[in-house]
């Protein structure tokens, strides 16, 4: 099976390549170079939005595309974010149609539902995508998710799979991993929502499961059993600092403006409200079962923290 992976040079893309390159013929597409890649991985250094990129797809003979070329840099300008993410994604969709690639896997996130006080404990795939009501930076991801959904209906000949995993933990650089890698972890006093996390390698396994012929649609992906946020922090061994919630957001906003933190202020809602998903449809459809329990996931995160310190 020959698979094109866009955005392979990102941390998650590299992880996916290292995990899957012996099983599949992988072809990476990224505007950044990756010199230390496994020798059997073919790499094209090209911006996905460029015309030149189509050549890769034209002669590629791909059986599937895994689209990871999504920018999650809250510091990037919203315009750059938008053109890169949305235009990049629509381009990839065009290539799939024009070059008859039968499968497209998009990586969205359970954050598109948004942490909200009125959320049921477990959101299903048909829950409205309300993540953007408070946190505008996530609107891109919502737009991307919706793009994928309309593509799914317009082009039934392409098996489109949209995965919405919960907070991914590991060596990846994302808000939840960065947060739990802190030495002193701030928390909102009096709030202790239930949290779901998933090991980064389990997300790779979910993508692999999504590649199975016949699998199509939108799927939530959960990992370990849900635990209270305080339990998650306790497992990192970090010190907890409680902040009153009404102070946390304005303070964080100031810190953000002064470039003293990498956490956008509205994300504190994740420390306050529940945003968990029910992934029963994905498990039933593909047989996916996460291989890493919470202990292993947290141990993996601790290792990534050590590596970072070094």
């Amino acid at each position, binding site marked *: 099976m020959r698979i094109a992976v866009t955005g392979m040079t990102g941390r998650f893309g590299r992880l996916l390549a290292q995990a899957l390159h012996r099983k599949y013929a992988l072809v990476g597409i990224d505007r950044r170079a990756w010199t230390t890649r496994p020798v059997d991985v073919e790499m094209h250094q090209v911006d996905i939005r460029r015309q030149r990129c189509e050549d890769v797809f034209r002669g590629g003979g791909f059986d599937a595309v895994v689209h990871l070329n999504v920018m999650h840099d809250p510091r990037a300008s919203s315009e750059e974010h938008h053109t890169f993410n949305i235009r990049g994604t629509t381009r990839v969709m065009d290539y799939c149609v024009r070059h008859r690639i039968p499968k497209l896997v998009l990586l969205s996130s359970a954050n598109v539902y948004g942490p909200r006080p009125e959320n*049921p*404990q477990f959101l299903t795939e048909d829950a409205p995508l309300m993540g953007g009501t408070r946190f505008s930076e996530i609107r891109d991801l919502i737009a991307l998710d919706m793009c994928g959904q309309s593509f799914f209906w317009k082009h039934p000949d392409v098996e489109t799979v949209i995965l919405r995993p919960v907070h991914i933990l590991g060596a990846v650089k994302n808000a939840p991993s960065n947060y739990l890698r802190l030495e002193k972890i701030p928390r909102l006093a009096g709030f202790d929502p*239930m949290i779901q996390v998933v090991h980064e390698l389990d997300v790779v396994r979910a993508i692999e499961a999504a590649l199975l012929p016949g699998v199509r649609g939108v799927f939530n992906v959960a990992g370990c*059993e*849900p635990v209270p946020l305080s*339990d998650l922090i306790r497992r990192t061994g970090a010190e907890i600092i409680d902040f009153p919630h009404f102070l946390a957001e304005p303070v964080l906003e100031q810190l953000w403006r002064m470039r003293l933190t990498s956490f956008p202020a509205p994300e504190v809602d994740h420390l306050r409200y529940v945003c968990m998903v029910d992934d029963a449809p994905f498990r039933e459809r593909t047989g996916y079962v996460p291989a890493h329990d919470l202990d292993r996931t947290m141990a993996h995160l601790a290792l990534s923290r050590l590596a970072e310190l070094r």
Partner: protein
Amino acid sequence: MPDSVIDRIDRLKAELGDRPTDDFGFDPESIKPIAPALHWLYRHYFRVEATGLQGLPAGRVLFVSNHSGQIPLDGMMIGCALLFEGHPPRAVRSMVERWVPTLPFVSTFFARLGQVLGTPENCRTLLEQGHPILVFPEGVRGINKTYDKAYELQAFGHGFMRLALETRTPIVPVAVVGAEEQYPALWNARPLARALGLPAAPVTPLFPLLGPLGLLPLPVKYRIRFGEPLWFDGDPHDDEARLGDKVSVVRDAIDAMLQEGLENREHVFW
């Protein structure tokens, strides 16, 4: 407080295995600090007499009760009855309002005690996991009624019946006699309630006359009767009228137990 109460809580904790809480954040350990107070209220203040606890269905079950007494002590006492005297002890889950998750400390406290945000999805999940749920289909109409309407069942919502049909869950009707008299509201000061953003502002013979002392519930005797389980069949998405017929069966069962309880009681306070 007898040791058996702690044993009962430990039994609930054991069901969780090595997880710190269940999926909804319920941790039976959290009951322990307040268990002495609950037990004192249950045994000595309200001297609860619970009947019909034998032969309750195991696994998922919907307890449907009348609602009264201005503050939901009736729910608390039903929960205590199932925990202190149930065979086996059970932690009944009840539903909280949508603004509760926005409150610091309160949200966590309620979640640890097994209270869950009241959405149909959450009820369905709990039932599918085999938990017992307590619902008051009268809602605020029941709990905030004035004393002239004591023991008159108000209109029932239909949501619980839809859930029972969808998840094929038995319904156990529950009648609470006594709670109506804990705060006999003479008048509901609606404009004041609206101004304060409260569901009701009851004026009782002792409140606000006696000041904070008037806030204490009267030491009435609670009689809680658990009825025979009822099973229903049918389409959960049936029209309201057809659902209403089924709801009436439950309402009538509760009403009959209420009237019987009222006839048999000799005094409000003992």
